[in-house]
């Protein structure tokens, strides 16, 4: 068995250009790695949370919608605007249907909300549905603060005849989209009710979608 020293002696010759090449390769890797560390350490971003006061939106005025009676159904004007002073929302309402794949259509613009036209009109008997975006690619959308709503807060829907349907929040829930409670949200209701829908929970950057929906349930005040 040869000693390490003896083995060294026989490992000759070492070419100088080869050694320089190895050194350069090594330095290159160090440089690339350092750049990677610098970039990767800047890549994370915390979630933007609603902070401070929402935009001031005054409580709207107008003729208050009557409680719909079971015998005079179907004579309610279509909804035109949504006003929620507690979270600074004041928007016109666009009309929403379903997409070609059967999902709820959502507004093209993130700053407006939309009424789902296959649901009852807000203020008529049944479960009216309004959806809006939590955010765009860049920042907050019309329903960014929806998750902050609390039971008892008011939601106002202006109708085409100028009347106001006034709703009181009864509950707020977050559901995984994979287990969305379609019957609870879109199913029949015996009184005039409203559901406000937006996204929430974890954002899956692989699919570009949030994994959950936030749904606020409200009922027409008397």
């Amino acid at each position, binding site marked *: 068995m040869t000693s390490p020293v003896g083995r060294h002696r026989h490992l000759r*010759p*070492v*070419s*100088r250009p*080869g*050694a*320089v090449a*190895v*050194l350069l390769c090594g*330095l290159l*890797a*160090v*440089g690339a*790695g*350092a750049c990677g*560390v610098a970039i990767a350490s800047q890549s*994370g*971003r*915390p979630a*933007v949370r609603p902070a401070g006061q929402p935009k001031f939106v005054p409580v709207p005025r107008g003729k208050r919608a009557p*409680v*719909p*009676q*079971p*015998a005079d*159904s179907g004579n309610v004007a279509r909804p035109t605007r949504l006003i929620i002073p507690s979270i600074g929302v004041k928007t016109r309402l666009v009309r929403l*249907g379903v997409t070609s794949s059967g*999902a709820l259509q959502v507004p093209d613009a993130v700053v407006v909300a939309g009424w789902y036209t296959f649901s*009852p009109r807000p203020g008529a*008997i*049944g*479960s009216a549905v309004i959806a809006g*975006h*939590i*955010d765009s690619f860049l*920042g907050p959308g019309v329903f960014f603060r929806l998750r902050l709503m609390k039971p008892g807060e008011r939601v106002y829907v202006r109708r085409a005849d100028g009347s106001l349907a006034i709703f009181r929040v009864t509950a*707020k*829930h*977050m559901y995984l*989209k994979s287990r*969305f409670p*379609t*019957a609870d949200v*879109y*199913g029949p*209701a*015996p*009184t005039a009710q409203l559901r406000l*829908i*937006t*996204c929430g929970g*974890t*954002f899956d*950057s692989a699919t*570009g*979608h*949030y994994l*959950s*929906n936030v749904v606020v349930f409200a*009922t027409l005040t008397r």
Partner: protein
Amino acid sequence: MRPTRKIARQARLASVLALALGLIGFAGPAAFASAAGSASAAGSASVTAPAASRVGWLRLAHLSPNTPAVDVYLYSFGDPSAMIVLKHVTYGTVSAYQAVPVGDYTVAMRGAGAPASSKPVLSSTVDVAAGKAYTVAGLGPASGLRLQVLKDRLTTPRGKALVRVIQASLQQHRVTVTAGSTVIARNLAFSSVTSYQTVTPGTWNVHADGQTSSASDRIQLAAGTIHTLVILDDPGHLAIDNLVDAAGSRVLPDGGAATGFGGTAGVPASSLVPWLVTVAAGLLVSAAGIARLRRSRRAALHAR
């Protein structure tokens, strides 16, 4: 001389390794902290408000043709003061549903204008369950007036409408009700109620045919809606009253709503580990290069 050089090389190698490990040790916790930060931000978004599902719904109806107007009182069980009072309710009147906490209730009828302290003409109890709806109806002739608690449905088969019939005509003792060619009620006797029937949605010509009189109406029965058709005596003829028991969406969207693009969502930091490994490997290769360079210089010196 040689052992010292060997020790020096090992020391150099050790210092390179220590430097690499030190880099990982320095940056690793930072990466970990940023990942943990975004995870907690996502976690705190899962808020659920207290459910308001501990309510049911009640509505009151006067469907006895020859009974004069009544005052209807609703009492929560054990509470002597009325929760709701409907004054001067006349034949054919059906109230809107009232949301009430789950529990037992008493419905009492008194003649219109009778003092609240007077003995009711009629009373009945109803046990309201969470998320259920009930119609408490005064049915039958004045001589045999009764309060009947009807359980109202709040779900439809997908894409269908539901409809039932209450026969409240005393003039026509038996009535047959059709929607298009579908028979909803055949020879239904006065003061009786059908169960709900599933019907294809659409706007239907609804006919109510008694022995000597009939009525018809165009009635829209949309998918996801639930109706009660009440057959009433109008002076001299029949009338159909179309009550909406409940309404939902005509088309049920699949799944949730795509209402966000992620502009306010947290993004976890990408991992630093591959880059740190690259740095460490680069340092090792560089060290090897330096060693070879020295060796080649020594060889050149020896050769001279």
